[in-house]
């Protein structure tokens, strides 16, 4: 996967996260990626996202009390992480 599509993935993650965390989204996600994966946000891959989701879940659970909202957010990230990139036939 090239760096452009990695950056696109981060943008998608950020778009989802913005809905739940608002202005704190970028800071929150950057710290997760840099600390747990030792990578820059624009280097994020789908595989990374799968391993990161467990950490995102526990962290965001401290920012919102509603576990339903946490589950909804995590489901969206899981869908994004497991989405197959369409291949050219």
């Amino acid at each position, binding site marked *: 996967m090239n760096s452009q599509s990695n950056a696109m993935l981060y943008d998608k993650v950020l778009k989802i996260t913005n809905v739940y965390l608002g202005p704190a989204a970028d800071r929150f996600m950057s*710290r997760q990626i840099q600390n747990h994966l030792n990578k820059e946000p624009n280097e994020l891959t789908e595989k990374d996202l799968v391993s990161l989701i467990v950490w995102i879940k526990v*962290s965001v659970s*401290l920012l919102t009390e509603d576990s339903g909202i946490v589950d909804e957010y995590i489901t969206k990230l899981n869908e994004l992480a497991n989405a197959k990139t369409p291949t050219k036939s």
Partner: protein
Amino acid sequence: MSDAQSGPDNTNQLIVEKQAEMEALFTSIGDGAITTDEFGKITRINPKARQILGFSEKEMIGGWFPNKIVAVNDQDKIINMIDRPITKAFLTGKTISEKCIYRTKKGKLVPVNLSVSPILVDSKPLGAIQVFRDITLEEEVDRMKSEFISLASHQLRTPLSSIKTYSHMLIEGYMGDVNKDQQKSLRTIIGATNRMNELISTLLNITRMESGTIRVSLKTINAKTLVDEVIEELNLLANERSIEINNLSGKYQLDVIRTDPLLLKEILINLMTNGIKYTPENGKISLTVKQTTEHITFCVADSGWGIPEDVQNQIFSKFFRAKNIVKRETTGTGLGLYLVKGLVDALEGRIWFKSKPKHGTKFYVEIPNGKNQH
């Protein structure tokens, strides 16, 4: 071991025993301990934690951690959850240890030292455990210690001021003529009181630094003006030692900075005074200031005796004095650079140096421009 012994009943018994052991361990910890699940809900709280926070077990279990355990800053304002140690532990995956202030059920503020770690199973976080200790007593002792030193310093300074004032009056002939020998003695007295005053200031600052009570008070200032003030203050000392000071702060374009002017001034005065003290007569000292978008860097360069290479890694240690300096300058305490390092840390800056024996030393202090700090 027979099949019967290693069967499901035996395994269950072992699990029950281990759980009881863990429960006893958790309950008997002398510090407060709280565990949370993956949704931030409190799953366990030990008696000590309940005692510190004033809540019953029933009130806490199942409650959402941020609602139940309220952390505030010095001004009793609630700390944003994203900046709290438990969130940091999840954001980093590491154990976080910090000082914090908790608000109890009755609204009392309790300073605590805490350590929080993610609970990991197969590298996946399932919650967190937080252990914390009430440090009210330690804080009180620290406060009393600081008050005592502050009081003692003040009490020492007052008689010193009298000695200095009357010595000046005597030397200037306000109380009759004084001969040359008497003048020489009076100058010695004035010099000694000046050194005693410096020593008291240094000790006071070090006490504040070590007890973490140095308060950084940010102000928007012009670095050039501050450097001019520092040099103005040191001109007399430099003249006494026939040292030339070059103020090169106007060499580069400088923007305003946001920092603590008193701490920065203390840093520069210490470095410049060291330069003056440890440079032979007719030597030179310069102060250069450069600025980037993020930082401002001050460079104090002297043409002095330099720091021997084998002790360069020790110069920021408390009471350290290099042998080549002790032989020449007997009055130092070895506290100046230790204090400077602490003050630079307080300003979130860094300090480093380049030195060659007999060719002088250059000290660099870099601090943030602080434009985004309030």
